[in-house]
């Protein structure tokens, strides 16, 4: 294997970020130039990643310089592709938003690519200090992007809340790393796993260290009891960044912690199982409660992302030895990525064209004015609610089946109860779009529908449906099978143990 090929995706994202940064010094470039350049950089990165897609490999590049800190394996490759594709979609879907909002300047895209670079690094990190650095590169870029929304007074609150809390929780990660180093003498994940298999000494210190790291994880994915920042931060930031945080950033965090969890499984599972059980329950409960009480769509989607986090923690519980159930997690992340970017992107598209806050009421009569947008929103909402024929159903089906299979029938039942309630707040929006006539003064007629963002939304809608129908091979519909994702996932997990 050509080893330089492995590092090229990250390099091209970094170069793209630098180019964008220099471009932003000149006024001659318009927002569409920035979008073009960033998409080109990302597409090049995807093409480089696709070179090894589906192969089973695990290599440490330049061991003299990098040591084992960064590992290039099929697992990192899979997550890189998810992150890159997710970011491409966010940039494309947000095209009309970025064109309308004057505060989104060129450097926004530069920062976004820097944060993406951090996330890619996070997916490749096999050592805690490297992971921390990658983590902070990603986080700090996101803190800045949260503050871009100069039209909303809440942005200062959002940014500072996120910055202060995020930095505070980052310290726990460092403390945990220090404790683990104290216990085992190493910060390399593979070596920690080997240590734990061999000896039981300093086990208490190790457990405390791991739990500290768990806090960071829970904060970033907005699980209970670290969920309260979500509403303010998601509300105050530009919609694009909300989508970015809810989908892409979450995937990056999961990339690191899934690696950690699967490698040190036998030890951690015993310790974290009761914690995760409680957290699943409480996260679902709080998320559902928060989602029910929202009137602004952006906040509803933000709050419901907490519920989806609850499902993901349930899937974490059901992982099993050797990561047998990780298919469910990865598939659910993909499902959520598609539907959340779609839903948030659509909201951003509407915000870009109008001046409204986008509450439930603002969606009244959308189906009559803009049938295409309403149909797409319906697809994304159905997918979020887990209705069959969308990818969201498949994701939920895998998660719940794995959970029941691992013996968590009661928790799976509770999760399904949360799903039942979620039907209410998702279907309420569909009802608003289809069953009411428009009663407001929004100049929907001036909507510009021939835009990149509308096509990107359409592509996401098609993917959502394709993922849900998969490969029902009826004689007239030959579709590639979604089982392919499974094979790739298994390869990815297998590469962790090489």
């Amino acid at each position, binding site marked *: 294997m050509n080893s330089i090929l492995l590092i090229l995706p990250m390099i091209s994202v970094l170069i793209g970020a630098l180019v964008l940064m220099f471009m932003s010094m000149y006024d001659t470039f318009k927002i569409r130039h920035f979008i073009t350049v960033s998409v080109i950089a990302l597409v090049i990165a995807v093409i480089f990643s696709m070179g090894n897609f589906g192969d089973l490999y695990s290599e440490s590049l330049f061991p003299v310089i990098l040591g084992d800190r960064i590992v290039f394996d099929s697992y990192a490759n899979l997550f890189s592709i998810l992150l890159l594709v997710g970011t491409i979609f966010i940039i494309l879907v947000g095209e009309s938003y970025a064109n309308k909002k004057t505060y989104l300047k060129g450097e926004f895209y530069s920062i976004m690519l820097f944060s993406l670079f951090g996330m890619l690094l996070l997916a490749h990190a096999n050592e805690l200090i490297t992971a921390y650095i990658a983590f902070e590169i990603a986080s700090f870029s996101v803190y800045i992007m949260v503050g871009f929304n100069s039209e909303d007074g809440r942005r200062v609150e959002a940014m500072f809340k996120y910055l202060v809390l995020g930095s505070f929780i980052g310290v726990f990660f460092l403390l945990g790393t220090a404790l683990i180093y104290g216990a085992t003498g190493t910060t390399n994940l593979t070596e920690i796993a080997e240590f734990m298999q061999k000896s039981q000494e300093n086990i208490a210190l190790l457990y405390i260290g791991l739990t500290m790291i768990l806090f960071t994880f829970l904060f970033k994915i907005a699980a209970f009891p670290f969920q309260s920042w979500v509403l303010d931060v998601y509300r105050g930031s530009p919609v694009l960044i909300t989508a970015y945080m809810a989908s892409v950033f979450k995937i990056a965090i999961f990339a690191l912690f899934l690696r950690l969890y699967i490698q040190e499984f036998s030890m951690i599972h015993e310790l974290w199982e009761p914690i995760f059980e409680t957290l699943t329950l409480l996260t679902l409960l709080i998320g559902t409660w928060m989602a029910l009480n929202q009137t602004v769509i952006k906040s509803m989607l933000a709050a419901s992302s907490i519920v989806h986090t609850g499902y993901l923690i349930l899937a974490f519980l059901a992982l099993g030895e050797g990561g047998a159930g990780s*298919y469910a997690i990865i598939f659910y992340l993909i499902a959520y990525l598609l539907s959340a970017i779609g839903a948030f992107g659509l909201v951003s598209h509407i915000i870009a064209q109008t001046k409204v806050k986008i509450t439930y009421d603002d969606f009244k009569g959308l189906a009559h004015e803009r049938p295409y947008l309403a149909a797409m929103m319906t697809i994304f909402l*159905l997918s979020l609610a887990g*209705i*069959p*024929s969308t990818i969201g*159903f*498949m994701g939920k*089906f*895998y998660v*719940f*089946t794995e959970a*029941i*299979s691992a013996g968590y*029938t009661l928790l*799976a*039942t509770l999760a*399904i109860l949360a*799903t*039942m309630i979620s*039907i*209410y707040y998702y*279907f*309420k929006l*569909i*009802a608003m779009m*289809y*069953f*009411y006539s428009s009663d407001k003064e929004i100049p929907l007629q001036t909507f510009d529908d021939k835009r990149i963002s509308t096509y990107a939304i359409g592509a996401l809608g098609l993917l959502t449906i394709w993922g849900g129908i*998969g*490969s*029902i*091979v*009826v*004689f*007239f*519909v030959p579709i590639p*099978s*979604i*089982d392919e994702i*499974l094979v790739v996932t298994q390869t990815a997990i297998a590469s962790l143990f090489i």
Partner: protein
Amino acid sequence: MSADILSFIIFLPAIVAFILMITTKDANTVRNIAFVTTIIIFGLVLKLYLSFDPEAGIQFVTNNVWIEQYGINYYIGVDGFSLTILMLIALLISPAYLLLWEGRTKGYWINMLLVQTGITGALLSLDMVLFYFFWETMLLPIFLIMGMFGTGNKIFSTIKVTVYTIAGSLLMLIAIMYLGTAYYAEFGTWSFAIDSFTQISTLSYDAKLWLFLAFATAFAIKIPLFPFHTWITDTYTNAPTGAVFILSAIMAKLGVYAIVRFLIPIFPEIYSDFSIFFVCIGIFGLIYFGIAALMQNDIKRMFAYASASHLSFITAGVFSLNAYGMSGALYLIIAHAIATGGLFLLIGILHRETGFKTISNLGGIAKQAPIFTVIFAIFLFSNVGLPGTSGFTSELLIIFGLYEFHPVLGYISGLTVLIAASFMLWMFQRAILQDRETDNGKDLPMRDLKIKEILGLIPWVVLIFVMGLYPDYFIDKFEPSVLHYISDILPSGATK
């Protein structure tokens, strides 16, 4: 290729719907193409019906891999039970298109086509995940039809019925996943096919009972059985005629069908042990809904309760553990679907023309619209169970079945059929025959049926009499399936 005829029947409406969605905007064109589609499907189903061999069990099977990892297959096939209902659906939908005047927009007809794909798919699936897939999907078009074209407090009732039924379905989903994992634990491979689920032997009696209840709740909500019936009055009052027609004539029957198809083979012991419980719920529902129907002034509401009452009766027949009861239940499914479907369509026309749907405001219809009255009466008599109509044969069979199950229950059910007769005929007399009592007896603006509508209804009227007078021809098609259930699936000694 002949095996794929089922896929064709399932997916043709959906494909036509998608093509129509992007090509044309004219509601009339859409409506005509939709009608032609249903006629084509009727032809295909008829071909299937004639080439079906009653003795051969499940036929026309297609079994393709869908999701390999979890052993989920696109597994469809047809046996005596599902064929009969498939025929019924095909027979009901195309004539109904001729009588639905409310469909003035493109969206209405596209949703009607999509709902047809959903119900046929659910009917023919032999894989539980595939079944769930269609079972949930068929709800969405109904949701949209009700919300967009309903009357009154339509949004509340739409959300209510949606949340209600999805809640039931999700309970069923848990049970399906639990059975799947149990199969995996026992045999080491994943499978969600019904034949696989029947082989599971590791489940404890308690676990089976819980799973049975989860399934039964989902189906009881759809049917609806007491005490899961509270959605019907709002829904049937506020929903447009098309949705009411689909819900009462077809979807409710799918609930009963699902009990026969899934609950009996997968949980035979629970089915026979708890049959007395369900028979009692059925007979209680028959009486309770019957009395509720007597009190109604709104015709749509009255028929909502009447329909629930008959469906409770059907359920009692399904749980009677013998061939009489079960054949009668299946026969009544058909008879009731035709009669109730027709009545709801006629009431739709009545409501549209006169603007009233309350019994006290109506009257004097008979002299203005004689053909309407005659056809209305025929449906009504079939619903009441007058000898010579299809209702009579089927109700008689169920009463026999219940009598064999327990003589006392047989007597009770025999007597309570009178309730149905009383509220139906009383309504008929007040709303249709008698002169109006309000507005000084001024005549309502009622027109008689048009030729097109009569043509649509004639097959049903003929069928009511043919089914009443020559039941053997129809029963022969599904009787072997019924006997197979009774003798092979139920534990020995359970049949009485």
